C-alpha cells in the first residue's frame, strides 16, 4: 500500500524533463496520469527513486485535427479523448475504445501517453494505434523523432523508446472508414480477455482496405497484416471473415492467466475479430 520514498521533480518544459532523465538514468521515470505507475509503486513492484511529473508541461496537452491529420498530446486523458468533438468526427474509434478502458475515475487521470508508452501488453491504446498506423513522437537529448506504432513494441514492457526519451505526441490520419473496437473483459475496469480494433473502407460493396490489430493476445499488441489483407477485395462474407480470423489467430501467442487457458483466449480472439469486422463493415 505504501510506496518507497522518492525525490519528486515537476519540470515546466520538455527539455527540463529530459535533462532530469539524463541526470538520473535508470533511477528516473516519468509519471503521466499515474494510474499504471502508482499502483505498481504502491505494491513496491516498481522502484522509482526520481519521479518526473509531466503535468505542468503545456506542450504535451491538447488535441488538434488539421488537414486530415490528428495530433494528440501525450498527456491528453481518456476523458478528453471521449469528450473531444473534433476527435469524435475525425476518429470515432478513439471514443469507442476509450469508453471501454478502466472506469470513470481512472479515465479522468489516465493519459494516452501513459497507456501507449510503457509496453504493457494489457493496455488498449497500443493495438488501436497500430490499427490507425499512428506515429509516436519521442523527444530525447538528441531532439525529436517519430516511430511508427507498428514498429514501437518489442516485448512486454520493452519498447523502441530509449530511457532518456519521453513520448510527447501521437499522430494519425483522420478517417471516415468503418470502425469497431470489440473488447471482451470480465468486468468494467478489467484488461481485455481479447480485443480487436478494425478499420476498413468499402467501395460499392467491396472492401478496399482493412487494418486489424489485436490486444492482450501476445506480449505486445499485434497488427495482423495478413488478417487485413484477407478482407481486401472481398465483400466481408462469412468466408472472408473466417479467413481474416484464421490469419489473425496465426499471428497471436496468448498466455494462460486468470481470464482463462490458451484455448479459450484463441476462441475469444476469434469472436472479437469476427464481431469487430462485422461492426466495422456495417459502419463503412
Amino acid at each position, binding site marked *: 500500500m505504501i510506496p518507497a*520514498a522518492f525525490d519528486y521533480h515537476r519540470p515546466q518544459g520538455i527539455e527540463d524533463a529530459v535533462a532530469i532523465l539524463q541526470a538520473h538514468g535508470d533511477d528516473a521515470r516519468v509519471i503521466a496520469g*499515474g494510474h499504471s505507475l*502508482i499502483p505498481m509503486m*504502491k505494491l513496491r513492484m516498481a522502484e522509482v527513486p526520481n519521479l518526473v511529473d509531466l503535468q505542468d508541461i503545456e506542450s504535451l496537452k491538447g488535441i488538434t485535427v488539421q488537414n486530415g491529420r490528428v495530433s494528440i498530446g501525450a498527456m491528453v486523458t481518456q476523458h478528453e479523448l471521449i469528450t473531444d468533438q473534433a476527435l469524435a468526427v475525425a476518429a470515432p474509434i478513439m471514443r469507442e475504445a476509450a469508453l471501454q478502458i478502466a*472506469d*470513470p475515475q*481512472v479515465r479522468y*487521470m489516465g493519459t494516452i501517453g501513459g497507456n501507449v508508452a510503457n509496453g504493457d501488453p494489457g493496455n488498449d491504446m497500443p493495438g488501436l494505434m497500430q490499427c490507425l498506423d499512428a506515429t509516436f513522437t519521442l523527444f530525447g537529448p538528441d531532439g525529436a523523432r517519430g516511430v511508427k506504432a507498428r514498429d514501437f513494441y518489442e516485448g512486454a514492457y520493452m519498447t523502441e523508446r530509449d530511457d532518456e526519451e519521453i513520448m510527447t505526441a501521437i499522430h494519425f490520419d483522420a478517417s471516415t472508414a468503418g470502425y469497431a473496437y470489440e473488447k471482451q473483459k470480465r468486468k468494467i*475496469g478489467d484488461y481485455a480477455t481479447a480485443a480487436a480494433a478494425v478499420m476498413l473502407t468499402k467501395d460499392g460493396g467491396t472492401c478496399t482496405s482493412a487494418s486489424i490489430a489485436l490486444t492482450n493476445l501476445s506480449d505486445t499488441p499485434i497488427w495482423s497484416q495478413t488478417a487485413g489483407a484477407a478482407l481486401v477485395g472481398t465483400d466481408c462474407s462469412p468466408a472472408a471473415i473466417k479467413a481474416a480470423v484464421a490469419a489473425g489467430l496465426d499471428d497471436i501467442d496468448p498466455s494462460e492467466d486468470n481470464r482463462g487457458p490458451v484455448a479459450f483466449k484463441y476462441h475469444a480472439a476469434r469472436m472479437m475479430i469476427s464481431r469487430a469486422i462485422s461492426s466495422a463493415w456495417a459502419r463503412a
Partner: protein
Amino acid sequence: MTKMKVNLTVNGQAHEVEAEPRQLLIHLLREDLNLTGPHIGCETSHCGACTIEMDGKSVKACTVFAAQAQGADITTIEGLSEPGTLNVLQESFREHHGLQCGYCTPGMITRAHRLLQENPTPTEEDVRFGMAGNLCRCTGYQNIVKSIMAAATELNSAKEAAE
C-alpha cells in the same frame, strides 16, 4: 524522507501541509487534514471508496501522490454540503436506502455529484456505467441507482422552477 510543502485548497479552504512526496493524497486528507470521509478499501485502485473531486474531476485519492496535488482544488464529501445538513443527493440516498454500512457512501456520493454535472439527465444505464468505478458490497447497487436517478429528477425540477 525529506518533506516538501504542498499547497492545496480543500473544501474551499487553503492548506499548506508538510508531506513526503510519496505520501498518498488519501492519507494527506484523512490524517493531516482530518477529513476521514473518503475511505480506503483496497491498494490497487479498484474500489473507489477514496473518490474525491480534484480540479473538477472524479479522482481516486489513493492513486495520487501528495506532491502531484500541489496547487490542486479538492472537494471531499465533507465539502459537498453544509455541516449537519444533507444536500439533494444525500437526502435522496437516505430516502431510497442507497446505503447500508456507509463505507462506500462518501465515494459514491462524491462521484455521483460529478456524474450529474457531466450528465444532468442520465438514464439508468448511464448511471450504472458512470458509477462503475465505485464498488459496494452491501446494497447490490439497485437503490444507489434509484437514489441518483431521483436526485437528478429533483435537481432538474428545481432548476426548471428557478428558471
